[in-house]
Protein backbone atom coordinates (compact mmCIF):
# COMPACT_ATOMS: atom_id res chain seq x y z
CA UNK A 1 0.00 0.00 0.00
CA UNK A 2 1.31 3.41 -0.92
CA UNK A 3 2.20 5.94 1.76
CA UNK A 4 -0.37 8.62 2.14
CA UNK A 5 -2.29 10.64 4.65
CA UNK A 6 -4.48 8.59 7.00
CA UNK A 7 -8.02 8.38 5.64
CA UNK A 8 -11.11 8.90 7.78
CA UNK A 9 -14.36 7.55 6.38
CA UNK A 10 -17.84 7.85 7.88
CA UNK A 11 -20.49 5.31 6.98
CA UNK A 12 -23.82 7.03 7.36
CA UNK A 13 -27.42 6.87 6.14
CA UNK A 14 -30.57 8.87 6.46
CA UNK A 15 -32.73 5.85 7.07
CA UNK A 16 -31.93 3.40 9.84
CA UNK A 17 -31.46 -0.30 9.11
CA UNK A 18 -29.94 0.15 5.67
CA UNK A 19 -26.61 -1.55 6.45
CA UNK A 20 -24.27 0.94 8.15
CA UNK A 21 -23.02 -1.63 10.62
CA UNK A 22 -22.88 -4.40 8.01
CA UNK A 23 -20.70 -2.25 5.78
CA UNK A 24 -18.61 -0.79 8.61
CA UNK A 25 -17.71 -4.11 10.18
CA UNK A 26 -17.07 -5.93 6.92
CA UNK A 27 -15.05 -3.10 5.40
CA UNK A 28 -12.96 -2.76 8.57
CA UNK A 29 -12.31 -6.50 8.81
CA UNK A 30 -11.47 -6.66 5.10
CA UNK A 31 -8.93 -3.83 5.38
CA UNK A 32 -7.53 -5.40 8.56
CA UNK A 33 -6.48 -8.44 6.57
CA UNK A 34 -3.77 -6.23 5.05
CA UNK A 35 -3.16 -3.32 7.38
CA UNK A 36 -4.01 -1.47 10.55
CA UNK A 37 -7.54 -0.07 10.70
CA UNK A 38 -9.59 1.67 13.38
CA UNK A 39 -13.33 1.07 13.55
CA UNK A 40 -15.21 3.49 15.79
CA UNK A 41 -18.84 2.82 16.63
CA UNK A 42 -20.30 6.31 17.01
CA UNK A 43 -23.88 5.10 17.29
CA UNK A 44 -23.47 5.64 21.02
CA UNK A 45 -27.17 5.28 21.78
CA UNK A 46 -27.19 1.73 20.46
CA UNK A 47 -23.71 0.55 19.49
CA UNK A 48 -23.69 -2.88 17.85
CA UNK A 49 -20.56 -3.17 15.70
CA UNK A 50 -18.88 -4.92 18.62
CA UNK A 51 -21.17 -7.92 18.14
CA UNK A 52 -19.11 -8.92 15.10
CA UNK A 53 -15.67 -9.04 16.72
CA UNK A 54 -14.11 -11.08 19.48
CA UNK A 55 -11.50 -8.54 20.42
CA UNK A 56 -9.35 -8.29 23.50
CA UNK A 57 -10.37 -5.41 25.79
CA UNK A 58 -7.38 -3.04 25.89
CA UNK A 59 -8.85 -0.12 27.76
CA UNK A 60 -12.07 1.04 29.37
CA UNK A 61 -13.00 4.42 30.82
CA UNK A 62 -16.12 6.32 31.85
CA UNK A 63 -17.41 9.15 29.66
CA UNK A 64 -17.71 12.07 32.02
CA UNK A 65 -19.58 15.31 31.82
CA UNK A 66 -19.47 18.22 34.22
CA UNK A 67 -22.64 19.12 36.09
CA UNK A 68 -23.39 21.57 38.91
CA UNK A 69 -23.91 20.28 42.43
CA UNK A 70 -25.94 22.40 44.81
CA UNK A 71 -24.31 23.40 48.06
CA UNK A 72 -27.26 24.25 50.30
CA UNK A 73 -25.06 25.74 53.03
CA UNK A 74 -23.75 28.49 50.73
CA UNK A 75 -26.95 29.20 48.74
CA UNK A 76 -28.87 32.43 49.35
CA UNK A 77 -31.69 31.43 46.95
CA UNK A 78 -31.09 34.49 44.75
CA UNK A 79 -32.41 32.58 41.71
CA UNK A 80 -29.69 33.63 39.23
CA UNK A 81 -28.84 30.01 38.43
CA UNK A 82 -32.31 29.08 37.28
CA UNK A 83 -32.70 32.27 35.28
CA UNK A 84 -29.49 31.75 33.31
CA UNK A 85 -30.08 28.05 32.53
CA UNK A 86 -31.28 27.82 28.93
CA UNK A 87 -32.12 24.16 29.38
CA UNK A 88 -34.15 24.36 32.60
CA UNK A 89 -31.69 21.90 34.10
CA UNK A 90 -31.60 24.03 37.26
CA UNK A 91 -34.89 25.03 38.84
CA UNK A 92 -35.81 26.58 42.15
CA UNK A 93 -38.64 25.05 44.11
CA UNK A 94 -39.09 27.29 47.15
CA UNK A 95 -36.07 26.80 49.40
CA UNK A 96 -34.56 24.09 47.18
CA UNK A 97 -32.43 24.24 44.04
CA UNK A 98 -32.97 21.11 41.97
CA UNK A 99 -30.44 20.08 39.30
CA UNK A 100 -31.38 17.74 36.44
CA UNK A 101 -28.08 16.25 35.29
CA UNK A 102 -29.49 14.77 32.07
CA UNK A 103 -30.76 18.16 30.89
CA UNK A 104 -27.48 19.92 31.73
CA UNK A 105 -25.30 20.89 28.74
CA UNK A 106 -22.23 21.63 30.89
CA UNK A 107 -22.17 25.32 29.93
CA UNK A 108 -21.06 26.36 33.44
CA UNK A 109 -23.31 29.48 33.39
CA UNK A 110 -25.05 28.70 36.70
CA UNK A 111 -21.81 27.74 38.36
CA UNK A 112 -19.78 30.71 37.15
CA UNK A 113 -22.52 33.27 37.77
CA UNK A 114 -23.44 32.07 41.26
CA UNK A 115 -22.28 34.88 43.59
CA UNK A 116 -21.84 32.44 46.48
CA UNK A 117 -20.09 29.60 44.60
CA UNK A 118 -22.93 27.37 45.69
CA UNK A 119 -22.98 25.36 42.43
CA UNK A 120 -19.52 23.86 41.97
CA UNK A 121 -19.14 21.66 38.87
CA UNK A 122 -18.47 17.97 39.43
CA UNK A 123 -17.90 15.11 36.96
CA UNK A 124 -20.72 12.67 36.29
CA UNK A 125 -20.47 9.45 34.32
CA UNK A 126 -22.82 9.24 31.33
CA UNK A 127 -21.55 6.01 29.82
CA UNK A 128 -18.50 3.91 29.03
CA UNK A 129 -15.86 3.92 26.32
CA UNK A 130 -14.20 0.62 25.41
CA UNK A 131 -11.17 -0.06 23.24
CA UNK A 132 -10.70 -3.57 21.82
CA UNK A 133 -8.01 -5.09 19.66
CA UNK A 134 -8.34 -7.97 17.25
CA UNK A 135 -5.25 -8.40 15.04
CA UNK A 136 -4.85 -5.31 12.85
CA UNK A 137 -8.24 -4.03 13.93
CA UNK A 138 -8.75 -1.54 16.72
CA UNK A 139 -12.38 -1.35 17.70
CA UNK A 140 -13.63 1.51 19.85
CA UNK A 141 -17.16 2.02 21.06
CA UNK A 142 -18.99 4.23 23.50
CA UNK A 143 -22.20 3.22 25.13
CA UNK A 144 -24.46 5.74 26.84
CA UNK A 145 -26.11 4.85 30.14
CA UNK A 146 -29.87 4.31 30.05
CA UNK A 147 -31.69 7.63 30.51
CA UNK A 148 -28.89 9.82 29.17
CA UNK A 149 -30.03 12.14 26.39
CA UNK A 150 -26.96 13.74 24.90
CA UNK A 151 -25.14 11.69 22.29
CA UNK A 152 -23.00 14.50 20.88
CA UNK A 153 -20.51 14.85 23.79
CA UNK A 154 -20.03 11.06 23.86
CA UNK A 155 -19.45 10.99 20.08
CA UNK A 156 -16.98 13.85 20.23
CA UNK A 157 -15.06 12.28 23.08
CA UNK A 158 -14.93 8.87 21.35
CA UNK A 159 -13.55 10.40 18.16
CA UNK A 160 -10.92 12.29 20.12
CA UNK A 161 -9.89 9.12 21.93
CA UNK A 162 -9.52 7.23 18.65
CA UNK A 163 -7.60 10.04 16.97
CA UNK A 164 -5.33 10.53 19.97
CA UNK A 165 -4.45 6.88 20.28
CA UNK A 166 -4.59 5.56 16.71
CA UNK A 167 -4.41 8.71 14.58
CA UNK A 168 -1.56 7.26 12.53
CA UNK A 169 -3.50 4.24 11.28
CA UNK A 170 -4.06 4.36 7.52
CA UNK A 171 -7.81 3.91 7.88
CA UNK A 172 -10.33 5.07 10.42
CA UNK A 173 -13.95 4.10 9.83
CA UNK A 174 -16.83 5.67 11.72
CA UNK A 175 -20.03 3.69 12.04
CA UNK A 176 -22.37 6.69 12.33
CA UNK A 177 -25.74 7.00 14.00
CA UNK A 178 -28.76 7.07 11.64
CA UNK A 179 -30.66 10.18 10.63
CA UNK A 180 -29.48 13.70 9.87
CA UNK A 181 -29.56 15.37 13.29
CA UNK A 182 -26.82 16.62 15.63
CA UNK A 183 -25.25 13.20 16.39
CA UNK A 184 -24.79 12.54 12.66
CA UNK A 185 -23.29 15.98 12.06
CA UNK A 186 -20.85 15.37 14.90
CA UNK A 187 -19.91 11.97 13.48
CA UNK A 188 -19.44 13.21 9.92
CA UNK A 189 -18.05 16.73 10.27
CA UNK A 190 -14.32 15.92 10.38
CA UNK A 191 -14.05 12.97 7.98
CA UNK A 192 -12.40 12.92 4.54
CA UNK A 193 -15.14 10.93 2.84
CA UNK A 194 -18.71 9.85 3.57
CA UNK A 195 -20.30 6.65 2.35
CA UNK A 196 -24.08 6.93 2.36
CA UNK A 197 -25.69 3.53 2.38
CA UNK A 198 -29.29 3.20 1.33
CA UNK A 199 -31.86 0.71 0.15
CA UNK A 200 -33.55 1.11 -3.24
CA UNK A 201 -37.03 1.83 -1.89
CA UNK A 202 -39.10 5.03 -1.80
CA UNK A 203 -38.41 5.26 1.93
CA UNK A 204 -34.69 4.73 1.37
CA UNK A 205 -34.63 7.39 -1.35
CA UNK A 206 -36.55 9.89 0.78
CA UNK A 207 -34.02 9.65 3.61
CA UNK A 208 -31.06 9.45 1.20
CA UNK A 209 -32.04 12.87 -0.15
CA UNK A 210 -31.96 14.28 3.38
CA UNK A 211 -28.57 12.66 4.01
CA UNK A 212 -27.21 14.04 0.71
CA UNK A 213 -28.38 17.54 1.64
CA UNK A 214 -26.64 17.15 4.98
CA UNK A 215 -23.25 16.03 3.66
CA UNK A 216 -23.41 18.64 0.91
CA UNK A 217 -23.99 21.33 3.53
CA UNK A 218 -20.93 20.00 5.33
CA UNK A 219 -19.01 20.10 2.00
CA UNK A 220 -17.89 16.49 2.30
CA UNK A 221 -17.06 14.29 -0.67
CA UNK A 222 -19.38 11.32 -0.65
CA UNK A 223 -20.66 8.35 -2.57
CA UNK A 224 -23.61 5.99 -2.30
CA UNK A 225 -23.74 2.26 -1.68
CA UNK A 226 -27.02 0.57 -2.53
CA UNK A 227 -27.75 -2.30 -0.19
CA UNK A 228 -30.44 -4.94 -0.68
CA UNK A 229 -30.21 -4.21 -4.38
CA UNK A 230 -33.03 -5.88 -6.29
CA UNK A 231 -35.90 -4.89 -4.02
CA UNK A 232 -37.95 -1.72 -4.52
CA UNK A 233 -37.41 0.26 -7.70
CA UNK A 234 -34.82 2.18 -9.77
CA UNK A 235 -35.50 5.59 -8.29
CA UNK A 236 -32.33 5.69 -6.17
CA UNK A 237 -30.19 5.00 -9.24
CA UNK A 238 -32.10 7.62 -11.25
CA UNK A 239 -31.67 10.13 -8.44
CA UNK A 240 -27.91 9.48 -8.17
CA UNK A 241 -27.51 9.83 -11.94
CA UNK A 242 -29.45 13.11 -12.01
CA UNK A 243 -27.49 14.49 -9.08
CA UNK A 244 -24.17 13.22 -10.40
CA UNK A 245 -23.54 11.18 -7.25
CA UNK A 246 -21.15 8.23 -7.65
CA UNK A 247 -22.62 4.82 -6.81
CA UNK A 248 -19.70 3.01 -5.22
CA UNK A 249 -21.24 -0.46 -5.13
CA UNK A 250 -24.44 -2.43 -5.07
CA UNK A 251 -24.94 -5.24 -2.59
CA UNK A 252 -27.64 -7.67 -3.67
CA UNK A 253 -30.60 -8.45 -1.48
CA UNK A 254 -29.85 -11.90 -0.12
CA UNK A 255 -31.28 -14.14 2.52
CA UNK A 256 -27.84 -15.57 3.11
CA UNK A 257 -26.41 -12.14 3.98
CA UNK A 258 -29.31 -11.45 6.34
CA UNK A 259 -28.79 -14.83 7.99
CA UNK A 260 -25.06 -14.27 8.52
CA UNK A 261 -25.64 -10.78 9.88
CA UNK A 262 -28.33 -12.00 12.25
CA UNK A 263 -25.98 -14.58 13.71
CA UNK A 264 -23.27 -11.99 14.31
CA UNK A 265 -20.99 -13.12 11.49
CA UNK A 266 -18.97 -11.20 8.95
CA UNK A 267 -20.22 -11.66 5.41
CA UNK A 268 -17.52 -11.00 2.85
CA UNK A 269 -15.69 -14.32 3.24
CA UNK A 270 -18.92 -16.27 2.73
CA UNK A 271 -20.36 -14.16 -0.10
CA UNK A 272 -17.73 -13.40 -2.79
CA UNK A 273 -19.83 -10.62 -4.35
CA UNK A 274 -19.62 -8.71 -1.09
CA UNK A 275 -15.85 -8.98 -1.09
CA UNK A 276 -15.81 -7.57 -4.61
CA UNK A 277 -18.09 -4.76 -3.51
CA UNK A 278 -15.81 -3.92 -0.58
CA UNK A 279 -12.79 -3.74 -2.86
CA UNK A 280 -14.74 -1.48 -5.26
CA UNK A 281 -15.70 0.81 -2.40
CA UNK A 282 -12.13 0.92 -1.13
CA UNK A 283 -10.70 1.62 -4.59
CA UNK A 284 -13.21 4.37 -5.12
CA UNK A 285 -12.44 6.04 -1.78
CA UNK A 286 -8.71 5.95 -2.46
CA UNK A 287 -9.13 7.25 -5.99
CA UNK A 288 -11.36 10.09 -4.91
CA UNK A 289 -8.97 11.01 -2.16
CA UNK A 290 -6.02 11.07 -4.53
CA UNK A 291 -8.01 13.38 -6.79
CA UNK A 292 -8.88 15.58 -3.81
CA UNK A 293 -5.30 16.01 -2.71
CA UNK A 294 -3.65 16.54 -6.05
Amino acid at each position, binding site marked *: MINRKPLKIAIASGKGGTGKTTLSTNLAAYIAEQQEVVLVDLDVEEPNSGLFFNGELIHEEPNLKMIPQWDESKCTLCGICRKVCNF*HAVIQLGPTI*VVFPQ*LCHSCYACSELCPENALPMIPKSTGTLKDFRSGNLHFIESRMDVGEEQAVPAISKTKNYAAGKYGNANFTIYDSPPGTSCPVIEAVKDVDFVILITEPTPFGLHDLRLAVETVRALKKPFGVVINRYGIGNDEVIEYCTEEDIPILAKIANSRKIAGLYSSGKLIYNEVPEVKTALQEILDHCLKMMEGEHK
Partner: protein
Amino acid sequence: MKIAFTSSGTTWESIIDPRFGRTEYIVMYDEESQELSVVDNSSVKNEAHGAGTATSQRIFELQPDVLITGNGPGDNASAALKHIKMKILVNAHDLTLRQAYEQYKNGELKEQ
Protein backbone atom coordinates in the same frame (compact mmCIF):
# COMPACT_ATOMS: atom_id res chain seq x y z
CA MET B 1 -58.70 23.80 47.17
CA LYS B 2 -56.83 25.12 44.14
CA ILE B 3 -56.94 22.96 41.04
CA ALA B 4 -54.56 23.28 38.08
CA PHE B 5 -55.45 21.97 34.63
CA THR B 6 -53.15 21.56 31.63
CA SER B 7 -55.40 23.04 28.98
CA SER B 8 -55.50 23.73 25.26
CA GLY B 9 -57.69 26.82 25.87
CA THR B 10 -58.77 29.32 28.48
CA THR B 11 -62.35 28.39 29.43
CA TRP B 12 -64.30 25.60 31.14
CA GLU B 13 -65.18 24.29 27.69
CA SER B 14 -61.55 23.98 26.57
CA ILE B 15 -60.11 20.51 26.12
CA ILE B 16 -57.44 19.25 28.55
CA ASP B 17 -53.99 19.45 26.95
CA PRO B 18 -52.59 15.91 27.22
CA ARG B 19 -49.03 17.27 27.46
CA PHE B 20 -47.62 18.47 30.74
CA GLY B 21 -44.38 20.31 29.89
CA ARG B 22 -45.58 21.71 26.58
CA THR B 23 -49.16 22.44 27.57
CA GLU B 24 -50.63 25.54 25.91
CA TYR B 25 -52.09 26.93 29.12
CA ILE B 26 -52.23 26.21 32.80
CA VAL B 27 -55.76 27.00 33.99
CA MET B 28 -56.27 27.44 37.75
CA TYR B 29 -59.60 27.04 39.50
CA ASP B 30 -59.96 28.32 43.04
CA GLU B 31 -62.88 26.48 44.66
CA GLU B 32 -63.24 29.09 47.41
CA SER B 33 -63.57 32.15 45.20
CA GLN B 34 -64.97 30.04 42.32
CA GLU B 35 -62.69 31.93 39.96
CA LEU B 36 -60.86 30.66 36.92
CA SER B 37 -57.44 32.14 36.11
CA VAL B 38 -55.18 31.43 33.15
CA VAL B 39 -51.40 31.22 32.77
CA ASP B 40 -50.14 31.30 29.18
CA ASN B 41 -47.46 28.64 28.88
CA SER B 42 -46.53 29.30 25.24
CA SER B 43 -43.05 30.58 26.10
CA VAL B 44 -42.22 27.19 27.61
CA LYS B 45 -44.04 25.29 24.88
CA ASN B 46 -41.50 26.43 22.30
CA GLU B 47 -38.41 25.63 24.35
CA ALA B 48 -36.14 23.02 22.78
CA HIS B 49 -35.14 21.55 26.12
CA GLY B 50 -36.40 21.25 29.65
CA ALA B 51 -40.07 22.07 29.06
CA GLY B 52 -41.04 19.59 31.79
CA THR B 53 -38.89 21.14 34.48
CA ALA B 54 -39.78 24.69 33.39
CA THR B 55 -43.51 23.96 33.65
CA SER B 56 -42.88 22.29 37.02
CA GLN B 57 -41.29 25.52 38.19
CA ARG B 58 -44.45 27.40 37.15
CA ILE B 59 -46.74 24.89 38.81
CA PHE B 60 -44.69 25.24 41.98
CA GLU B 61 -45.17 29.00 41.95
CA LEU B 62 -48.94 28.59 41.48
CA GLN B 63 -49.13 26.20 44.46
CA PRO B 64 -52.20 24.15 43.45
CA ASP B 65 -53.47 21.31 45.64
CA VAL B 66 -54.44 19.19 42.65
CA LEU B 67 -53.11 18.91 39.10
CA ILE B 68 -55.36 17.46 36.38
CA THR B 69 -53.57 16.52 33.16
CA GLY B 70 -53.43 13.94 30.36
CA ASN B 71 -50.43 11.76 29.65
CA GLY B 72 -48.79 12.67 32.92
CA PRO B 73 -45.48 14.41 33.52
CA GLY B 74 -42.29 12.77 32.25
CA ASP B 75 -39.43 11.59 34.44
CA ASN B 76 -37.74 14.95 34.99
CA ALA B 77 -40.98 16.78 35.66
CA SER B 78 -42.15 14.01 37.99
CA ALA B 79 -38.91 14.28 39.95
CA ALA B 80 -39.46 18.04 40.25
CA LEU B 81 -43.13 17.68 41.23
CA LYS B 82 -42.19 15.36 44.08
CA HIS B 83 -41.00 18.49 45.85
CA ILE B 84 -44.58 19.81 45.80
CA LYS B 85 -47.30 18.35 47.99
CA MET B 86 -49.89 17.99 45.28
CA LYS B 87 -52.19 15.30 43.99
CA ILE B 88 -51.56 14.51 40.28
CA LEU B 89 -54.51 13.12 38.31
CA VAL B 90 -53.90 11.81 34.80
CA ASN B 91 -55.72 10.43 31.73
CA ALA B 92 -58.09 13.41 31.57
CA HIS B 93 -57.31 14.09 27.90
CA ASP B 94 -60.27 14.34 25.49
CA LEU B 95 -62.32 15.86 28.33
CA THR B 96 -63.27 19.49 28.71
CA LEU B 97 -62.08 21.21 31.86
CA ARG B 98 -65.64 21.09 33.19
CA GLN B 99 -65.98 17.35 32.53
CA ALA B 100 -62.56 16.70 34.04
CA TYR B 101 -63.47 18.69 37.14
CA GLU B 102 -66.72 16.73 37.53
CA GLN B 103 -64.88 13.43 37.15
CA TYR B 104 -62.34 14.56 39.73
CA LYS B 105 -65.16 15.44 42.13
CA ASN B 106 -66.67 11.99 41.59
CA GLY B 107 -63.30 10.35 42.21
CA GLU B 108 -63.19 8.97 38.68
CA LEU B 109 -59.74 10.26 37.66
CA LYS B 110 -56.66 8.12 38.08
CA GLU B 111 -53.90 9.25 40.39
CA GLN B 112 -50.37 9.10 39.02
